[in-house]
């Protein structure tokens, strides 16, 4: 079973535009993480936000967390063709990390 649900399932944008994807979850968490997966490859960790944090930045990435709404968003600014990938949120509760179904992002040059 998957705790997090990403929205939208797929996203197509032009290079230079911003990409925003959302993650909703059901139970309390210790932290929430975002991962990227290029086609046919393993997942790569992007950013971790703790339950007592509201916003975090890393390069062109901005993550927000609203624990009252049990939701998070990932913003990729000034997207590049190399950002084409699937993006997954993962919620950490207890000693387990549970992944959502992912958002497939296509950045067109």
């Amino acid at each position, binding site marked *: *079973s*998957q705790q*997090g649900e990403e929205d939208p399932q797929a996203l197509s944008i032009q290079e230079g535009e911003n990409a925003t994807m959302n993650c909703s979850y059901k139970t309390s968490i*210790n*932290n929430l*993480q975002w*991962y990227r997966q290029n086609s*046919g*490859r*393993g*997942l*790569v*960790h992007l950013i*971790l936000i703790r339950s007592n944090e509201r916003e975090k930045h890393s390069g062109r990435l901005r993550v927000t967390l609203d624990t009252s709404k049990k939701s998070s968003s990932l913003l990729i600014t000034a997207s590049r063709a190399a950002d084409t990938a699937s993006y*997954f949120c*993962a919620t*950490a*509760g*207890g*000693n*387990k*990390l*549970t*992944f*959502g*179904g*992912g958002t497939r992002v296509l950045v067109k040059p």
Partner: protein
Amino acid sequence: EAEVAQSPRYKITEKSQAVAFWCDPISGHATLYWYRQILGQGPELLVQFQDESVVDDSQLPKDRFSAERLKGVDSTLKIQPAELGDSAMYLCASSPGQVTGELFFGEGSRLTVL
């Protein structure tokens, strides 16, 4: 940079055959995870080890799947017999400790069951 090693990268087998996947985590990482990822979906945890002990195998289909990490280092995931529905990517990941922080993933083993 240290990486999680997995083999084989690709495996094609016929149903009812046995198949095995191997994972070597980053040196010093105590926690090792096996995830299964069906095409178009997110990874689902099959089994989690802390050193050589199983912490969570609640989603492992134990009638056909087995996993071991005998010396608390590398790990093997076995499927016997393989079924058509087992076609998926099998991902291994490791992390330094028990607290659920960043996971480091290998490149995965893509299984196709014919």
